[in-house]
């Protein structure tokens, strides 16, 4: 059990973590989510006593980390897989950590087996790939057979098989009654691994709830409505009627409408009254990834801007007519969110200041890579707990 109370960390003028309070319980995998720079790693470092909180405190089983009788036997942590001396072999690295905590030396070979590094145990870790480094870090965390485990981005650099292995390992460790606290910036990964979620943005708590509650609270549904392509005036008529009825209407790239705030039967009635035929009227559920993106949108610190290549444009030449590859033809299909705002504000939500600026007024090139694209989940996160549908930006 990890308990943080009013945890705050300031580096000079920058507040990395602000008044964070949460509990991490044993027996379940708790996901720790937030965009890059939101304070996840700082929080983890404070849990294991590497950084001293500016105010507040965090305890493990009621004691601060430094006061635990033998910390590595109670808490195992993978904070940074690169935090090893590359000149030392994997086995001797683990042996030195085992000796430091009075753990029997034979435990080293056990954990090397668990993470599958027996074959390279005698090799210097300098030559390890990112994935092998992660495995070595996980081995170090498991060394003390601890009750509490912290993992900071454990699947970084792992291959699909490795990701699956980590996922199952976390669940197994939690099933044994341990406290498992895993940070990630990938909602899709957490949706598969975690039972409980703690979401932070800009160092502040955004959500602390079970995955089910998170989905229920954050993934609002919407209706997709399509009028005949041959009758554009019908589309406008219907839009006007829907807005009048209190709905919010956004257009999708293929000409369909995304309607929120009006129940499906009512949409049908409105269309009937307006004398507009419908080609499609379908209910949709927003994905967990989208719910997360919407929640943390305002809290993203690092945001890409369009690559303008200012000053690099040549004088208009014969090819100047085609500034973009897909100019005038936005990619068709279900998989494309509305380009002007992929994560529209839900009814009752504050308008997002960033969302507005994201609507770039006619960027010089509708470049092949859309700016501010949502981070793609790893290819190795296939199925999802939630229904993935047209929302999926991948």
């Amino acid at each position, binding site marked *: 059990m990890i308990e943080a109370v009013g945890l705050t960390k300031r580096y000079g003028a920058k507040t990395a973590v602000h008044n964070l309070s949460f*509990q991490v319980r044993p027996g379940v995998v708790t996901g720790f989510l937030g965009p890059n720079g939101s304070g996840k790693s700082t929080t983890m470092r404070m849990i294991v006593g590497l950084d001293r909180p500016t105010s507040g405190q965090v305890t493990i089983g009621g004691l601060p980390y430094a006061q635990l009788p033998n*910390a590595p036997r109670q808490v195992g942590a993978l904070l940074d897989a690169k935090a090893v001396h590359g000149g030392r072999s994997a086995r001797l690295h683990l042996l*030195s950590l085992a000796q*430091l905590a009075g753990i029997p030396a034979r435990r080293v070979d056990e954990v090397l087996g668990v993470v599958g590094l027996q074959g390279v145990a005698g090799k210097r870790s300098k030559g390890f790939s990112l994935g092998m480094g992660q495995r070595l870090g996980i081995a170090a965390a498991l060394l003390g057979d601890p009750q509490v485990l912290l993992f900071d981005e454990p699947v970084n650099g792992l291959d699909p098989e490795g990701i699956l292995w980590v996922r199952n390992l976390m669940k197994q460790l939690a099933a044994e009654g*341990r406290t498992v606290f895993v940070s990630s910036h990938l909602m899709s990964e957490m949706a598969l691994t975690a039972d409980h979620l703690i979401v932070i943005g800009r160092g502040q708590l955004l959500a602390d709830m079970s995955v089910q509650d998170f989905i229920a609270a954050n993934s609002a549904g919407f209706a997709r409505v399509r009028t005949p392509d041959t009758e554009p005036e019908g589309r406008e008529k219907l839009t006007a009627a829907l807005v009048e009825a209190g709905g919010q209407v956004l257009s999708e790239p293929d000409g369909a409408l995304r309607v929120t705030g009006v129940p499906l039967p009512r949409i049908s009635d409105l269309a009937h009254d307006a004398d507009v035929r419908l080609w499609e009227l379908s209910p949709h559920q927003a994905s967990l990834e989208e719910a997360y993106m919407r929640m943390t949108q305002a809290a993203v610190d690092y945001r890409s801007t369009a690559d303008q290549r200012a000053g690099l444009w040549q004088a208009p030449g014969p090819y100047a007519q085609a500034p973009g590859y897909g100019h005038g033809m936005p990619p068709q299909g279900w998989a494309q969110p509305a380009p002007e705002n992929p994560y529209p504000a839900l009814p009752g939500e504050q308008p997002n200041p960033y969302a507005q600026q994201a609507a770039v007024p006619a960027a010089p090139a509708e470049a092949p890579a859309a700016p501010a694209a949502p981070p793609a989940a790893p290819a190795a996160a296939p199925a999802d707990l939630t229904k993935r549908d047209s929302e999926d930006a991948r």
Partner: protein
Amino acid sequence: MTAPSVSNYVSPIPVRRATLADALASEWTKIRSLRSTMWTMGIMVLLVFGVGSLIAMAAGAAGDDVGNNASALGFAVFGVLLSIICVITLGVLTMSSEYNTGMIRTTLTACPNRGRVLAAKAIVFFLLVFVIMLVSTTLVAMVDTAMIRGNGLVETTGPMWLKATFGVSLYVALLGLLALAVGTLIRHSAGAIAAMLGLMLLPMIMAAFMVADSLTDLREFLLEYSIPTMLFTIYVTPSSGSGPEGWDAVFVMAGVAAVALGGAYAALRSRDA
């Protein structure tokens, strides 16, 4: 809220408190598993023994009168002086390499008692350097005294032998501890090594420019207490009659190293890793 206790999972491996002995074992594993240790210690032995015996051999062949109340043991000083560079490098690296690689975070997570980590590192490094240095200086002393007699050298005595082996090894190992403390304070390998070399050479260079009369005392002090000069005084009692002599150099270095380690401990404790 029903707070379940942390003991939901109980490890079958018996838990016991970690001690300084555990930290010493860990640091010994760390220091012996790195190539930088092999390189620096190997070159150190080579310099102490090789340079020490070569110079003695050359002096013996020339047969000139050395005088200046020196003994045959004194020829070892040049090798030891050069080997100090190796000791400084390893001393700095013992701590700063943990910072450069990020290993310090893993170490301090595995042992939140930072004082214990520093103590274990200092003890292991000190003993390693001291033992290797003791063996090397004893060997080179035996070779030198066997190779040259006469040349106007004074006869070697028991206390002289003790100083030339045990005393010199202590002095060099303590200097290594100073480097380890500087490595902890600066946390950057190149920076800390440069700082240590500066500390070693700067006093003599500064003294060379202090020609004004009002600075005479300061110049004398810088010359007499510079690291190389103090090493010489362990072998040969200076004729000037002032400054450190005999075991003084060892005591001075012990004091400086203790102060620096105290500062390193305070910094290690207060800083975020």
